[in-house]
């Protein structure tokens, strides 16, 4: 397995994100599906260009992270930039709305959702 970040100069991650380290994490999930709403334009940051090219069909944040070889948290920051400027839209998972910590029990998805999952798995 390649471990690019371990060998990477930490400065690179700093430059890629413009020095930001926090993003409103609750707004973007590791499997939020990102969809491009425009083409890259000249002068755009190369990571942003790559994301826009990748996301012509819905692509999860973790898939972008794997492709760009950047940590998931760094990709979330890049995605936030593009969201803020309307260049992409994000389809967030509908099952993560409820915080797991509320009563120390994870809220389970509705039976109807799980039924759909079962039907999908049966086709495998």
């Amino acid at each position, binding site marked *: 397995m390649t471990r690019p970040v371990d060998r990477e100069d930490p400065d690179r991650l700093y430059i890629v994100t413009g020095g930001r380290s926090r993003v409103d994490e609750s707004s973007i999930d*590791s499997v939020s599906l990102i969809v491009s709403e425009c083409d890259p334009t000249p002068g755009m940051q190369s990571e942003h260009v790559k994301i826009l090219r990748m996301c012509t069909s819905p692509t*999860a944040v973790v898939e972008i992270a794997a*492709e760009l070889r950047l940590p998931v948290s760094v990709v979330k920051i890049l995605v936030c930039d593009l969201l803020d400027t309307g260049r992409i839209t994000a389809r967030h*998972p509908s099952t993560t709305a409820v915080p797991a910590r509320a009563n120390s*029990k994870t*809220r389970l998805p*509705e039976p109807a959702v799980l039924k759909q999952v079962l039907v*999908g798995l049966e086709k495998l």
Partner: protein
Amino acid sequence: MDLKSSDPVTSSPLPSTVNNALKIVIVGGFGVGKTTMVRSVSEIRPLSTEEVMTRAGVGIDDAGEVKGKTTTTVAFDFGRITLNEQMVLYLFGAPGQQRFWFLWDRLFSGTLGAVVLVDTRRVQDSWYAIDRLEHHGMPFIVARNDFGGPEHRAEDIRKALDLSEDVPLIECDARQRASSKKVLVTLVNHLYSLSTREHAP
């Protein structure tokens, strides 16, 4: 530069109508077959990514764990199953080691449920994972990956894992698609019965 990881993403795009991504996590010790299981059912070749935990993001409890380090990296593999025109399931193979659990909330909040993949030759590797899943209130099943070792009776495995009767325990061969599929179906059936109970009026 290897391009292996970039091929599957671009060659197998999701339908444009997909709007809800779900997660299932397969937890287990090193070499227990997590990636093998992901590969056997995934429509893309398993991808690998990582998350970096900076010191600022480290809780007080684990200061000892990362002492002297500014960042800790946790790598994980994942695959994907398109369920229908709206739903896609992401399967994560995650290491059960201690540092991984500090990333649980960040990466795996909203996970439907988990599979604890067990190698009966190293049962103790699974204790910590089971403890943490219970701590996070995450429903799970246990799947024993068959490495061709001596036969173990289910009740012995239950005893070794201190597993309660209401947690399903099944045998599997992570290399076989049909077997891995059965593991996932068993998990989702388990979740379904828990959910029906919880959502009952």
